[in-house]
């Protein structure tokens, strides 16, 4: 399970600056369990965004957003509403945001930070997409994670090492930043390349005790201590 927490509302509004019409997307899997992107949270977010003057062109919750093919099939009946929006706000983990971005030709913004619980790929198992850094950057890149797509995890742009679109580390791996460039070009947001991404808050990658206490990790600790108690 991927655990997430919602980003501060002000930060989300910052991402949506300049976008008037938003399509809202939640996930009935882990984000539902985390209480960050199930139906109640999507409806609450709809109300808050409308209160902030945004028009919500549509909203839905899919189980699971990390399943790329499922995202495409569930959004198909809602395509008009999705394409009417300036961008999508996705309330789920980093894998779900990237799966959405891979299927939709619109900017996607993450509404949540993904909290580390030791690595999970969700239902998109081909490669690691989200490192659960707790400080989601997918907004800057149009929905491709620079920490996993770039071998060096560079946040502000490419190094000088790519050749013919492949990474200096391994010729089988595409340059993550060239993918991000093509994606931003596709959604008409190349201006995002000029934004300076400040030094990353790696401390957020360590789950805080109050988050751990609500997670499966806490259950495991409890089980362990009761086992020990028996001995």
């Amino acid at each position, binding site marked *: 399970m991927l655990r997430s927490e919602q980003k501060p509302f002000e930060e989300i509004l910052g991402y949506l600056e300049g976008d008037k019409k938003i399509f809202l997307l939640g996930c009935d899997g882990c984000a539902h369990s985390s209480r960050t992107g199930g139906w109640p949270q999507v409806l609450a977010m709809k109300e808050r965004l409308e209160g902030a003057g945004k028009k919500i062109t549509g909203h839905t919750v899919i189980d699971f957003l990390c399943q790329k093919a499922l995202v495409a099939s569930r959004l198909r009946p809602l395509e008009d509403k999705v394409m009417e929006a300036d961008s999508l706000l996705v309330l789920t983990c980093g894998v779900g945001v990237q799966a959405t971005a891979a299927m939709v030709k619109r900017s996607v913004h993450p509404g949540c930070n993904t909290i580390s619980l030791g690595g999970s790929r969700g239902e998109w198992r081909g490669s690691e997409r989200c490192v659960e850094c707790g400080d989601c950057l997918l907004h800057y890149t149009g929905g491709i994670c620079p920490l996993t797509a770039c*071998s*060096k*995890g*560079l*946040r*502000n*742009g*490419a*190094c*000088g*090492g*790519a*050749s*013919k*679109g492949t990474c*200096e*580390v391994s010729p089988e791996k595409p*340059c993550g*930043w*060239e993918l991000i*460039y*093509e994606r931003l070009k596709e959604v008409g947001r*190349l201006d995002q*390349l*000029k934004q*300076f*991404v*400040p*030094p*990353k808050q*790696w401390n957020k990658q360590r789950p805080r005790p109050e988050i751990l206490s609500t997670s499966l990790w806490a259950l495991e600790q409890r089980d362990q201590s009761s086992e020990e108690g028996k001995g």
Partner: protein
Amino acid sequence: MALREALESGRFAVTTEVGPLKGTDTTEIMEVAEILHGKVDGVNVTDQQSAVMRLGSLATCALLVQKGLDPVFQMTCRDRNRIALQSDLLSAHVLGVKNVLVISGDFPTLGDHIDAKDVYDLDSEQLLWTINQMNNGHDLIGNELKGKTSFLAGAVVKPVSDTDASFELQLAMMEKKISVGARFFQTQAVYEVSAFERFMKRAAKFKVPVLVGIIPLKSVGMARYMNKNVSGVFVPEPLIDEMGKAEDKTAKGLEVAARLINDLKGLCQGVHIMAIGWEKKVPEILRLAKLA
């Protein structure tokens, strides 16, 4: 001669670089320092170039300061986290180093310690931003410094790319690097005037000095090797032919380097010569290019 004065005066700047060796023997570097003294505006010291472990850039810079040269402290983001990077910047300042060049750094698997953990805690843009903070008297998190730094910060750019995405990214990042404090740029080695012209047509508007990179060719094999393995280096076939036909490869390599400098100098504000073992021949290249 100092790099900052050269760039600020608008004079065509000349820099070169030295690569420390693996070990404590500094004989070669000291000999090179002697030869370069008074002939160049700045001398870069590479930082664990190609991810191969060697004598440090900072210590070598300090030795060059003692010899009366103006070193450019190359700093990669690969090996140090933000605490070590900032501390080394403070150390560099007190040792008399005035220029820093920021680089991402080749990935460890390209070097000789392939099992090393890569760091990249800060990327190039974030390190430039940090240097700017420190020049203004604060560390990265805003704490006040007792005694600030006063670095001239530079960055690198690859003017020739093999994909549109890479070309556009390089320009976008150049602009971003300037916005966070880069005051000059050194480029990857250039062998084709028209390709560099295409780049400068877009980059000139940033109005930040660009020092074009020159690597003297030593042989046909070297040219072919770079074409195959070095990102952003494209030696055109006619130039490879010219090298192939030359009887005295060394003389030809130096002549070609001087010719390139002359053909490129109208397009930019300086030249950065990466001699890769030919450091002692740099004054000869400058003489042939009529820059000395």
